[in-house]
């Protein structure tokens, strides 16, 4: 009786014109190649307690059991049991688990892409410590191979492949950067031959929040750092990581690192973006094939560090503030302290959200969900949850430090006509930074 609700809507997009058999085969191939000891340990430990649902913003806000995180990877699990597990022949011979079929993959597309932001909150709720977020990400590799990705996301991925970045070509970038430099009256080094630091950015900032790009430039200039943007390695976001396109993930990762090494930079500075940090800071070396020789820092990590070292001095701001912890930076990135250092230095009276730090709720737009037009109703549900927690703090300012979260909140706020501005830590630091000496 519950299945009627779960199976009623089957939302899926298909890319390419592969015959069904090939789609299926390549999905299975990719699924199976994902299993190592870690993923296998996860598969072997689940006792179906369902506590992961209690952590998931999509289950909590809809009450629909199909959003139970472990349920989202069922085809992936079936592939494991039948083809990679310790008793795979037994499972196949006795038919203990049905084979994955294409129709099932199509039905699961919605669960794997629309209803998971890879936020990892379920990982913390799981008594067995199963990292479901990681499993969903791995399952996406198979879905991508099968050409079963939400169209909007696939479209962005194609742009990233063909045009260098979802934002556009290097020429587009150069034009935009010059415009920002002019508009915001800030010097922006572009394509310097040598620099100590390679600054990167995200399409969201270039399009919707150019002041954020200007702020980063101003801070770096004031600090007297030798830095540059590169028009053929400016893109920090990694839609290969979000969509399951491993080729692209590797290409985008290597592009940044190669460029940094080429210009002699020892640091790649990532913008206020969550998944860029996950992809670059924690996965770069594995795609690069070994130590990168480059430090990869997130903007808030960098700012907090310079504040603590005294290099950045700030005028005190007034009033109270609350902070949304971006999943990929805090829960999955270990940067819980950095934003709090910055907010304290800014002099705000920090009023934490009811759920904050590593167990904060996701904004609802991460993991490629924001780029997925179909997922809007779900996103808005998650937004309402966050909105109510923000309102409960009665804080005057609402900060975050991830472009995707910010965009998700901005769109949600537009939809619900919520007046709260969504502010960036980077921009706040820029606005309050005193000129050195």
């Amino acid at each position: 009786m519950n299945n009627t609700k779960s199976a009623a809507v089957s939302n899926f997009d298909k890319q390419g014109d592969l015959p069904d058999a090939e789609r299926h085969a390549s999905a299975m191939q990719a699924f199976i190649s994902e299993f190592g000891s870690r993923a296998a340990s996860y598969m072997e430990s689940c006792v179906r307690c369902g506590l992961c649902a209690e952590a998931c913003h999509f289950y909590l806000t809809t009450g629909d059991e199909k959003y139970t995180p472990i349920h989202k990877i069922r085809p992936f699990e079936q592939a494991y049991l039948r083809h990679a597990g310790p008793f795979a022949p037994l499972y196949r011979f006795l038919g203990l688990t049905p084979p994955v079929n294409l129709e099932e993959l199509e039905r699961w597309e919605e669960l794997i892409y629309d209803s998971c932001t890879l936020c990892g909150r379920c990982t913390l709720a799981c008594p067995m410590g199963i990292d479901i977020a990681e499993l969903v990400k791995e399952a996406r590799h198979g879905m991508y191979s099968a050409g079963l990705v939400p169209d909007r996301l696939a479209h962005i991925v194609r742009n990233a492949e063909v045009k260098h970045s979802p934002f556009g070509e290097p020429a587009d970038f150069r034009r935009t950067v010059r415009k920002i430099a002019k508009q915001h009256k800030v010097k922006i080094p572009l394509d310097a031959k040598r620099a100590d630091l390679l600054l990167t950015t995200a399409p969201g900032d270039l399009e919707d929040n150019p002041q954020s790009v200007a702020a980063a430039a101003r801070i770096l200039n004031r600090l007297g750092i030798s830095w540059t943007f590169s028009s053929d390695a400016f893109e920090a976001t990694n839609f290969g990581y979000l969509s399951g396109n491993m080729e692209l993930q590797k290409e985008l990762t290597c592009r940044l690192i190669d460029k940094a090494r080429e210009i002699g930079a020892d640091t790649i500075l990532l913008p206020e973006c969550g998944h860029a940090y996950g992809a670059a800071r924690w996965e770069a070396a594995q795609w690069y094939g070994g130590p990168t020789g480059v430090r990869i820092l997130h903007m808030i990590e960098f700012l907090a560090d310079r504040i603590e070292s005294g290099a950045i001095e700030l005028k005190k701001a007034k009033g109270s503030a609350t902070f949304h912890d971006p999943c990929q930076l805090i829960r999955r990135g270990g940067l819980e302290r950095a934003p709090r250092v910055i907010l304290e230095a800014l002099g705000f009276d920090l009023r934490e959200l009811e759920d904050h730090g590593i167990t904060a709720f996701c904004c609802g737009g991460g993991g490629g969900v924001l780029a997925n037009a179909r997922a809007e109703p779900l996103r808005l549900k998650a937004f309402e949850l966050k909105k109510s927690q923000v309102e409960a703090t009665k804080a005057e300012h609402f900060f975050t430090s991830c472009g995707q979260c910010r965009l998700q909140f901005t769109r949600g706020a537009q939809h619900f006509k919520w007046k709260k501005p969504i502010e960036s830590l980077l921009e706040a630091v820029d606005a309050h930074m005193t000129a050195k000496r």
Partner: protein
Amino acid sequence: MIAFIEGPAWYAALTIFVVFSLWRLGWVLLMGGDKHKSPARASAAAGAIRNIFVDLAPRGAFLKRGKVWFVALAGYAFHLGLFAVLLFAAPHVDFIEQKLLGFGWTPMPYWGFIVTAEIAFAGLLLLWIRRFVDPVTRLISRLDDHLAAGLTFIVMLTGCLALGQQSVFLRGLHMGFVELWLVYFPFSSLFHTFTWPLSRGYSGALFGRRGIRA
């Protein structure tokens, strides 16, 4: 019959249990392929140890949810009760001494047994019932999860029916189900007994490596 159940059948079941458990554990461990190469912020090993041995209570944020309390309390009641009964019930201590290790230890008193068995039963019953009536667990439960719960329940129940220690038949019944349970164990979700430190360890290592105070 009882001679068969307590003799060859017991050793056969024990062999299957050991061999296939080792097979399954070995398979998982030998798959390899852990490819984290990015510089760690802190110790992965420390994170793993923390996650396996220290962080065993639900995190505060989740305790706002009734189901988390329910599963945690019923889960611990069942598991602790089961282990206490398994290792400290007087007939079990005798059995371990005579058939397995050659030495024993002080068993718990009869009333202690009754109380722990009741706690274990209540926990298992509540968890198993929820499997049927909570849409979430109803959706995700496999036949295996019900068989695992059911067999464990029957093993515990036959054990308690044999409490009078007056009937060879009842003792044989209990032993028979224990053997069935042992044979089923390495192929079922009961195997989480051995894999939970692995999965918690892997995630703990991820937290540790990334400097997440999880």
